[in-house]
């Protein structure tokens, strides 16, 4: 992918996606928590299909394009589930081995006609895709899903790609939201969005719903998770960059004791620390994306890269948001002021797909000791 393509994509995303605090506030706590029209517009811009081959109605670009868009959406605090649907669920489908499902679903995902979620974590959470707690059972010759999955985002997807343990290994299945036996319990998140606790009771599946067979499922799921982890890190980067900018503006303009508070060295040094965290995140994220884009990158190297970036991004975003709040004083603690929107989104994104601590321990278990 050329630098020009990337630049165009970034500029168009930056132009289109600007912070609309009123919209973000209005959508909190609503079902589905985002706008279908906006989602389709995102499809029209090509964003939802960046990772989808042209043959399936996408742009056929790569992770570099996806993180570029994610960063801009992070700046604008888009509640639309870009990383969850256009990266995570889309890649799981794309790297599965069901050509017919790809044929029907990928174009609809690319256009924004549908929104998909990926259900892979058990009720206790955790990063290991093999620990999923949904099981595939045979009952009188029919195949059924049993069990539950949590932290599924977005809660109100049109369908979910569900990781299930079968006798031969992991499988992925496409389950429509309306499938009989599927119950969806939304759980409110700090930013006003919702993830779902999905319960499966004798939900019928077949070869037609099977997105990935045991031969492909585990690899597809891991690849999708690592990519979505990086795109979430990019959202966090966009968010922390804006938070820092907002804070620097405030330090320059808020006057106490007859001076801008930014003239106090106690705050200056900490603003510099925030800036350093942000720049470290930018560098790490860039390096992680490059190493994943390298054709020689192994699955394990990809996981190390994703964990290193997400550990940094989650930690830096929370640190920057906490400092931003402190430096704003009481006004930062109000809902009327946009900082709170960034703060609450940072809580959600830093926790989702593994928080800093979870990624540090995955990093430690994968990266070889020197």
């Amino acid at each position, binding site marked *: 992918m050329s630098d020009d393509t990337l630049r165009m994509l970034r500029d168009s995303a930056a132009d289109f996606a600007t912070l609309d605090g009123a919209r973000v506030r209005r959508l909190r706590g609503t079902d589905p928590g985002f706008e279908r029209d906006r989602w389709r517009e995102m499809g029209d811009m090509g964003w939802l299909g960046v990772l989808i081959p042209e043959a399936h109605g996408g742009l056929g670009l790569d992770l570099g394009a996806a993180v570029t868009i994610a960063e801009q959406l992070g700046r604008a605090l888009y509640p639309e589930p870009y990383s969850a649907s256009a990266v995570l669920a889309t890649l799981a489908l794309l790297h599965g081995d069901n050509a017919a499902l790809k044929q029907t679903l990928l174009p609809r995902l690319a256009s924004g006609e549908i929104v998909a979620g990926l259900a892979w*974590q058990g009720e*206790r*959470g*955790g990063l290991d895709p093999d620990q999923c707690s949904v099981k595939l059972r045979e009952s009188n010759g029919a195949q059924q899903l049993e069990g539950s999955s*949590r*932290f599924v985002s977005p809660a109100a997807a049109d369908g979910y790609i569900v990781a299930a343990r079968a006798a031969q290994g992991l499988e992925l299945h496409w389950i429509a939201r309306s499938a009989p036996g599927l119950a969806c319990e939304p*759980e*409110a*998140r*700090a930013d006003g969005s919702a*993830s779902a606790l999905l319960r499966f009771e004798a939900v019928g599946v077949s070869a037609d719903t099977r997105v990935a067979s045991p031969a492909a499922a585990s690899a597809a799921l891991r690849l999708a998770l690592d990519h979505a982890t990086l795109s979430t890190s990019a959202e966090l980067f966009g968010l922390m960059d804006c938070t820092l900018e907002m804070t620097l503006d405030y330090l320059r303009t808020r*006057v*106490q*004791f*007859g001076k801008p508070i930014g003239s*106090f060295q*106690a*705050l200056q040094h900490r603003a510099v620390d925030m800036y350093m965290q942000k720049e470290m995140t930018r560098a790490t994220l860039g390096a992680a994306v490059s190493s994943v884009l390298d054709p020689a990158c192994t699955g394990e190297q990809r996981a190390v890269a994703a964990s290193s970036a997400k550990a940094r991004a989650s930690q830096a975003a*929370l640190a920057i948001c*906490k400092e931003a*709040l*402190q430096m704003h*004083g*009481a006004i*930062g*603690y*109000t*809902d*009327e002021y946009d*900082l*709170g929107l960034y*703060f*609450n989104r940072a*809580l*959600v*994104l*830093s*926790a*989702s797909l*593994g*928080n*800093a*601590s*979870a990624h540090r321990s995955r990093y430690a278990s994968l990266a070889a000791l020197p």
Partner: protein
Amino acid sequence: MNYGVPQEQDWDTLSDAAFRAVVRAEVEAHHPAELRYPPRRLRWAENKSWYLRMAAKGWIAPGWPREYGGMGLSASKLLIFLEEMERWGIARFQDHGILMVGPILMRFGTEAQRRRYLPPILACEEIWCQGYSEPNAGSDLANLRTEAKLDGDAFIINGQKTWTTLAHDSTHMIVLARTDKEAKKQSGISFLMLDLKTPGVTVRPIRDLAGHDEFCEVFFDNVRTPATNLVGKLNQGWTVAKSQLGFERIHIGSPKLPEYGLQVLLSVARARGVEHDALFRDRLAQLQLDVAHLGDIYAHFAAIVGRGEALGPEVSLLKIWATETFQRIADLIIETAGEFGGLTGKVQMADGRIEVLAPFYKARPTSIYGGSNEIQRNILARQVLNLPG
């Protein structure tokens, strides 16, 4: 004059253990279970049943001297009293009347003011809020613009206060207002008492980022408060307000909130099955020590107050340590919670329901209010370490 309900006995004649048993028995028998460990500040309508009961028993003002209707507890007994409230997860109410207004009136008020205002504070009939901060007067409080002009037998107040905690639950406010515009910043300020039902007062709740309405903006449009509601001398309000800052710091510096944080941390760790994990144990022990040592230094400062001595600027360290310990605990809660750390409200974790983010939301502003931690560090650097300004 009898200010409140007479005490059943002289508590200081009891041993510490006997006194603790009395308090514990009372609390365990009568405190409503559903009010234990609330995840946010309760509104008066929610917790008034308990506090009216405490008022009727004469236990609403444990730190006040008996002559003014308090329990007259010594520093060590007061600590025990507060520990027992904490142990049972009993939340504060809008207690500025008890914590600030009472002590201020005892020290600076007139006999008539004490007779008028102390009894309804003790009966919880009048609830007070603190009207100090303004949009342009936060850390730089002396920059306040709200004006009060003497007009016959009343002051006429114009201006605005903000971030006033629970003004919408309060009947009265203490107001710092500028009464001399010519004088230098601190010296033209007076300390006034105001009935919030007075015409011209508008209270507007402000929603915070945790989604609660805990603080308010309060506007004054030609609001008249009787001249007899001036506390201390005209233009001496700064001295009156400052006299309580040490006590406010002691109050925010109590181990209460960090202890609540530790409890949530332990529930989250158990639900996540990491309570025996070696790394977690080490970090938990660090925080437990931070809280235990906070208790030690809190007792040291409380004893100074108990002896009736003035608190020095060192008390700022208590405020910093308490609030930042609470914040570190809240951070570890989120970290330990994993994906649960993004969920708001009561969250089902293992077999319990835990409000995972509540300590985090509570902890963040503690380093902003009561004099920000930056201001506390400035005080320590200049007034305790004597570093050049």
